[in-house]
């Protein structure tokens, strides 16, 4: 079996497992996200990523933006509603996204700089 096919099969199996866990335990987290956590745990336990799963996951990640196209086309069903409320929606989407990008990037960069400076100053406390 090609590694790619084996990899896709593994991803689907973990998605199924995630779906089952999410339903049985009544979690608010959707199946694929639970599947991601389960796969992450499995990969950490094995301490390496099998080539098959790596190949399938990389291929899907590279073209992930394609997968959002069908949902995006759904905009055509809401032209009426959007026409009536386009201003609050557009301002809310643009401003909140721009500010969230800035806040997340600045916070991460500042905290990472601090964490790394602490490591340089006192490397022995890391142990």
């Amino acid at each position, binding site marked *: 079996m090609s590694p790619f096919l084996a990899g896709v099969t593994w991803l689907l199996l973990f998605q199924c497992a995630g779906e089952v866990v999410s339903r049985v335990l009544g979690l608010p987290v959707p199946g694929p996200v639970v599947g991601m956590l389960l796969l992450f745990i499995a990969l950490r336990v094995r301490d390496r990523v099998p080539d098959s799963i790596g190949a399938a996951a990389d291929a899907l990640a590279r073209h992930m933006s394609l997968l*959002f196209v069908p949902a995006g086309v759904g905009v055509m069903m809401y032209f009426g509603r959007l026409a009536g409320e386009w201003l609050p929606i557009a301002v809310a989407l643009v401003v909140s*996204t*721009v*500010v969230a990008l800035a806040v997340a*990037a600045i916070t991460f960069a500042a905290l990472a700089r601090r964490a790394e400076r602490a490591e340089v100053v006192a490397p022995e406390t890391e142990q």
Partner: protein
Amino acid sequence: MSGDKFFELWVYLAATPLAGLTITLVAYTVGFAIYMHAKLHPLANPVLIAVIAIVISLRVGDVAYGTYFAGAQFVHFLLGPAVVGLAVPLARAWPTVSRLSVPVAGALAAGSAVALGLAVGIAWALGASPGTLASLAPKSVTAPIAMGIAERIGGVAALAAVFTVATGIIGAGLGKLVFDKVGVRDMRARGFALGLAAHGIGTARAFQVSAEAGTYAGLAFGLHGVLAAVLLPYIWRLTQLLAGKF
């Protein structure tokens, strides 16, 4: 071919799943070629180009969204395995990522609070309807998760998906500009912010720019999805209770 025969063939083809699937891939391929030609310019977003091209085609051909989706659902379905696969870059980068738990937690908390609070606050202040507000709330997390959250808090799932995709396109489009403006050059921070604010579309953009940025984008994307799915319904109920008090 006579006009009638051509019309019959068109009606037949437009109603098969083949048409919806094919037009999705053709439109995206064209969109991606334009994106490449524009040297990955963020505003030449392939999702945006594909969505506009498909909506115009469906309008011109008088095809309903449901008919289109019967074919496009095969692409939409792959979002599930793609989300599961995000465990891979995360597992590869874990040795470095785990040392950065403080920046990860801090940026996640600050960024997600801003994305949710500002989106709902601004739309509310400008007079959006309650159904629109509930559909806007989860707009920064990926479409399948956002749809589930919107339904739980009284929004419209399909509308939430539209807001989500729009947010992804806005974030992927403006990210570089924003990061340059605020002077953040750290690729990890830029990637993390893209994944947090613009989910899968931002993550795809980050991977196209650098593998390091992409890894942190995938991390933020996954964590934000889990956090929102668990907490947002409760936060929403709390704000409703508080709003009822005043």
